């Protein structure tokens, strides 16, 4: 992955969900596809953002999120039906920076995008996108584009 394209509308949906979860962590899934011919062959366009329930224990939700295996199955099946990929997830770091924590690294999947949003005093702030492993993290550029620009990008040839 090199560049992630997110529309302004999707960005607002992510922010609204994570702000509503505050002071707990909020989370959700990202459905998307790889784009051939736009900037780089490995660019990713986000087609849909799907807010999910944080299933961690009530007294852990201020610093943890967990999504159930059932939520994963539902979303992966939906992605397959729609010809998309389950490319990643998003979650908030309430009153903390949008960088992977040791806990994030410990639980990271390979080839999966982790979008992290810092939510400070209830307001969504910085959004950063990462590929994470136990001993490494690579940041990818997240381009938030207008809805019109996003629709243009969607017309480029896709590769799954």
């Amino acid at each position: 992955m090199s560049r992630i394209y997110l529309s302004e509308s999707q960005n607002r949906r992510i922010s609204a969900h994570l702000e509503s979860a505050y002071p707990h962590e909020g989370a959700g899934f990202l459905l998307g596809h790889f784009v051939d011919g736009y900037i780089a062959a490995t660019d990713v366009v986000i087609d849909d953002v799907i807010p999910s329930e944080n299933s961690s224990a009530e007294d852990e939700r201020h610093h943890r999120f967990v999504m159930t295996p059932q939520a994963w199955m539902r979303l992966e099946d939906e992605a397959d039906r729609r010809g998309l990929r389950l490319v990643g997830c998003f979650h908030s770091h309430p009153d903390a920076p949008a960088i992977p924590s040791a806990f994030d690294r410990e639980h990271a999947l390979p080839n999966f995008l982790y979008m992290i949003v810092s939510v400070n005093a209830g307001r969504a702030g910085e959004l950063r996108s990462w590929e994470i492993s136990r001993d490494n993290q690579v940041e990818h550029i997240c381009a938030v584009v207008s809805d019109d620009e996003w629709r243009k990008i969607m017309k480029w040839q896709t590769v799954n």
Partner: protein
Amino acid sequence: MAKIRIPTPLRAFTGGAADIDVAGATVGAALSSLVEQHPELRDHLFEKDELRSFVNVFIGDEDIRFLQGLDTEIAAGESLRIIPSIAGGRG
């Protein structure tokens, strides 16, 4: 012969294949058959010889941890599914 469905992020280690045919009469044997065919998967599924804590294996709607774990018997034609636990947080 049973079938294992691979989660999207791990399909990079199966040449993009979503479903892999595996041999074996138990979940453990089926997973061994899977990593024999695709050795790069091993480190993502196992910690030594145990399933990593955030790797779940389902048969239908049943998590094998609530059955007999890796010793759970499987029938020919059974479909297994590997599901990662998605977790994280600010620490």
